[in-house]
């Protein structure tokens, strides 16, 4: 089942005097339960594509459909709500908040939603990624791999259908990277979510269901 779809997406940036075309008529879709990897050299438009898939940015032309709903012209606040409920993010630099414990970091996306208490789910998720004994540790007390696991747990707190990963293994050594990829594969099946990751890491190929190559803003067959 297609959960997110880009159709004919063009993204132009104004960089000083000149206009940069980062994406040139990109068509892309991802389904529940699959892991898609977007590969390509730097400057190819991977990050731009991920930002548009994550509803952090809007296309200049073309449409974005989330669960068959056209969200292209949503306001910033509407996009924020869609991000909160349907999309999880994992970043290369983990981006955990240093003053919060692992559990609190996992709870972060639902923290302002005082109608639900996600503390138990946060602890549950941390146990599932193997951090049951690190619940009250702050990020500076955790290793790189452990931090990325906390970030993955955080991405899953609101039961999203899409998990976007920007170079998830970029700051990790090979072995740790491998365990993270195994973790993602397991979660993809358990939670039935679409995982879209952007990477340079050839290791990712082993775990991915499908690869898409992006060069100069164009998807190559």
């Amino acid at each position: 089942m297609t959960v997110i779809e880009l159709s004919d997406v063009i993204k132009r940036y104004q960089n000083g005097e000149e206009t940069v075309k980062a994406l040139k008529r990109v068509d892309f879709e991802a389904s529940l339960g699959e892991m898609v990897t977007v590969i390509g050299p730097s400057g190819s438009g991977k990050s731009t594509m991920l930002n548009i898939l994550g509803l952090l940015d809007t296309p200049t032309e073309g449409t974005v459909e989330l669960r068959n709903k056209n969200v292209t012209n949503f306001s910033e606040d509407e996009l924020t709500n869609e991000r909160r409920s349907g999309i999880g993010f994992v970043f290369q630099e983990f981006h955990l908040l240093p003053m919060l414990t692992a559990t609190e970091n996992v709870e972060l996306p639902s923290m302002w939603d005082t109608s639900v208490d996600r503390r138990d789910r946060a602890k549950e998720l941390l146990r599932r990624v193997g951090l049951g004994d690190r619940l009250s540790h702050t990020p500076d007390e955790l290793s790189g791999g452990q931090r990325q696991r906390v970030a993955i747990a955080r991405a899953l707190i609101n039961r999203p259908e899409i998990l976007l990963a920007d170079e998830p293994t970029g700051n990790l050594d090979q072995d740790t990277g491998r365990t993270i990829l195994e973790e993602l594969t397991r979660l993809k099946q358990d939670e039935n979510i679409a995982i879209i990751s952007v990477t340079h890491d050839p290791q990712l190929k082993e775990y991915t269901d499908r690869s898409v190559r992006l060069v100069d803003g164009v998807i190559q067959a």
Partner: protein
Amino acid sequence: MTIGDLFRRVPSVQMAWRNLGRNRVRTGLATLGIIIGVVAIASLGMAGAALQQQADSNLSGLTDEIRIASGEDSEEDGVTPGQVDKIRNVVPEATIVPQRTNSTTISVNNEESIVSVTAVTDANALYDVSAGEAPARLLSGALISSSTAQSLGLELGDPVKFNGNLYRVRGFLAEEDGFGPSGGNELVVPLSALSEQDNYDSVTVIASDGESAIQIADIIEQEFNQQGRKTEEILDVSTFASAQENINSFLSTLNLALLGIGSISLIVASVAILNVMLMSTIERRGEIGVLRAVGIRRNEVLRMILAEAGFLGLIGGTLGAVVSMGAGIIIFRFLADNGMLVFTWRGLQHLLSGFGFAVFASLLSGIYPAWKAANDHPVEALRG
């Protein structure tokens, strides 16, 4: 429910508190700036209030008095007994004290002193004594300024010679602060001592307070000085109420100036908060981008940063008010002779306004950084 649970219900406040705890030195310095601002504004406000308090207590004995003497259009030398009776009739509620005055030199044991002599019956209404008594009907004996008595070596019961008669000293006049009859170099004798004068040199009318003193002065003016349309000054009527008004208006100007100086320091403090908040949001730009990416709404980010500024104001304001209370005790002790006055409304209002101003200025300074952080584009913010 624990405090932690309570905190979890207000996530903006919880996050703000954690954020402030991250850079304690910066938070501490920002708070110190606010404390100084609050202490400046509250102390200067209290200094003004203490001066006002002191002026009020010094003047209160004067403003309810009206002094009446012979006017320039009067054919009489002084105020006649008939006029005194008329005054008594038109203002029956006030105490009327007619006086005759003179001056003389008294000598005791080769020590000499020039004194002004006041002949009066109702000494009690005009004078306070530091020792002895001030009779309501002074028919014999005399009262003398305590400083004069001291320099002449006089004690209670000693005789003083005036106009060939001897008067026993019955009381020492208390020295008074402020204006008016100071109680220095003064001899008070019965009216009969100056009986060769038919008229009175002056009449003091004592009203219940400053306001009724002004009304009584008007009534007497109407009665004696307004002849139809013509205005003649038969009696010279003067009150100290206008003097008090002048002093009050001077003091309120002074108060404004002092508060203005105090506000400058709080403005400096709020610029410091603006700077601190701006710095800390710029530093945390990437973090705020993460918050926005994971679905934290713009107004939630805004509330979080405003809460940080609000906390700085609350902490700085509270500590500032506590320090100011200490400063206030000293200020009121020195300027108004009573440190405890800081706990009356006169002092407390300045502590409250200092505190309120601190919270207000902090929130005001937080608006721009909060708005800026909340409206940053998430993609740009994530780049840090």
